[in-house]
């Protein structure tokens, strides 16, 4: 089998679709030189469109844990959620290697393909972990809503954590980057595609609590240890946009309190 063939696969971007590319390559003994989802860039290499067929994808999916172990399976699912620009092709190559080397694949950290995906998955896990802390909900009449702009597709990885934490709440986490939302009502969670999420203005109670949080945040700093560099390395600026403690307008006591204080 020649190393690279003069062909590119195109598919619909779904996980099943990607598995069908693996199927096709195995079935036809082809080795595409790339795997893409849209055919915008014109290329001189012929592009073959791979239909998504769950019969085929399921056969591939079932083979993964058998041939390369459960860890590899978990890993591939995670790799699919990363924001690595060439993740589809890397996953494809990872699986080729996996079929060849079996469970050993997960230890082959010095291999370029394995290594690239490990780094991407690490970034995904890292972002997921940070967002478990940095997500901020607001209460709109009993419904909790939060907006995030992650780099990776984190909602599937966050769902379990938040559903377990707030089993009795109704909540929604909107991922603006990937236009997806995790919607939960007791005891049912769903991840859906959503073009936009428009939220009403916060009511007084909500504003008060935001104000209290901001006050806590500002007060807890020990001024003689000020170190904004260190803060930023732990909490990169790109997360600040949706965090209550950094929102401008809310840093106010409710109006009535304000008047009362001036009157004093």
């Amino acid at each position: 089998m020649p190393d690279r063939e003069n062909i590119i696969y195109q598919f619909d971007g779904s996980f099943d679709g990607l598995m069908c590319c693996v199927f096709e390559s195995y079935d036809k003994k082809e080795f595409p030189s790339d795997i893409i989802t849209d055919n915008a860039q014109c290329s001189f290499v012929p592009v073959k469109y791979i239909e998504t067929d769950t019969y085929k994808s399921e056969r591939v999916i079932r083979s993964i844990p058998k041939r390369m172990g459960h860890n590899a399976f978990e890993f591939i699912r995670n790799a699919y959620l990363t924001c690595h620009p060439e993740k589809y092709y890397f996953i494809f190559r990872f699986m080729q290697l996996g079929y060849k080397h079996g469970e050993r694949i997960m230890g082959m950290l010095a291999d370029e393909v394995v290594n690239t995906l490990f780094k991407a998955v690490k970034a995904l896990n890292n972002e997921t972990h940070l967002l478990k802390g940095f997500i901020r909900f607001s209460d709109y009449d009993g419904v909790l809503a939060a907006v995030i702009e992650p780099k990776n597709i984190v909602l599937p990885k966050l769902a379990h954590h938040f559903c377990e934490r707030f089993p009795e709440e109704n909540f929604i986490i909107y991922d603006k980057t990937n236009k997806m939302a995790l919607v939960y009502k007791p005891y049912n969670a769903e991840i859906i595609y959503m073009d936009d999420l428009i939220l009403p203005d916060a009511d007084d109670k909500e504003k008060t609590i935001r104000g209290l949080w901001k006050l806590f945040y500002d007060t807890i700093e020990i001024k003689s240890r000020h170190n904004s560099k260190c803060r930023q390395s732990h909490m990169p600026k790109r997360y600040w946009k949706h965090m209550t403690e950094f929102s401008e307008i809310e840093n106010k006591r409710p109006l009535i309190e304000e008047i009362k204080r001036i009157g004093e």
Partner: protein
Amino acid sequence: MDLFDKLQILTGAAKYDVACTSSGVDKKSSQGGIGSAAACGICHSFSADGRCISLLKVLMTNICIYDCKYCVNRRTNDIKRAAFTPRELAELTISFYRRNYIEGLFLSSGVIKNPDYTCELMIEALSILRSQYNFSGYIHAKAIPGADNALLTRLGLLADRMSVNIELPSQESLQLLAPDKSKHSILSPMRHIQNKITEKTSDVIRYKHAPKFAPAGQSTQMIIGATAETDYQILNLTESLYKKYNLKRVFFSAYVPVSESSLLPSIGSKPNLLREHRLYQADWMLRYYGFSALEILDEKHQSLNPYIDPKCNWALNHLELFPVDVNKADYESLLRVPGIGPTSAKRIITARRTTRLSFDDLKKLGVVLKRAEYFITYRGKTTLGVKISQDSILRSLMSDKELSLLSLNGYKQLSFFDGDIEGVVKKCLTGKT
């Protein structure tokens, strides 16, 4: 006084307490309840001083009948006083928790009226949270020294972690600065909590539903730099607290001057962050790298080296054990290489099963070689190809600034407060180890 004022005062009074980690328990919310605690700690924010914010850290009240000299809340200090009602505090906690601002509550208190009364107020607040709101999130409660053991037990059943501050590293210092406290009044609740934890753990094994007593264990905190104890004394104390009292964590807190007293560093002197940082590194060696306190410091060496981290320092004094062959060394020996932590050591061991590691492989594995490279070989080669000598390593591990400080002052006499130490501090605080 409104809630804003109270929150401001009672946060301001609590913020010097460092033990704000929320790790160590893994549990789910109960039916109809709210909250879970994740085994690996979650930081919900970072304050402008770079510290992790994970818990709502406040005092029940900053009113105090005692007069510890190092404390802002001491009786004789002229400051605004406030107290939460148990209900206010419970509601505030829930409001923050629902919005994912926090992982839970860290509750401590000044001593109002007497230790028992104070402890009861805390118990009431925690009871509202646990039974009325069905709150399963994380709660860390400070035991009030001098409170009745029965009350401490009740508090411990409501909390995930309990701590008693050891405050100062020796009995003499305590006598000097906290005349109302003695080593006994601190160590006896510590012992009580330890006994309860072991007792309850065996209960849990016997009856599955026995309530857990502080399931995340016990921790303590001591103030560094207010008194004369050396790093050697502090590390030994730390080690024995881990061993004898089974503590989960010992926290160090560089003293921030809050009062003018001839017994204490004067107001305006900077907290010694570098020393605190080095102590945490040494603590890390005790907890994760398998070192004993005596390996790190001894009678003759009472202070941690301010210029390089203690693990590097240890390695430099034991060059006969290096270099270590990354393709052969066992886990324990890899862990002792400066710059290699548990993650890297595990990765090396996994990766070398399939291939003989080269220098580039190590880089790919994410092993930080800046320090490690002086102490390892791979395929029989060192990366540097030069004979290692203590002096040359030391020079390459330090920045130019540190080097100039070194030649200016003569390394041995250098005290922490000398010269422009700020650059050194910054480097140490940012340089990962």
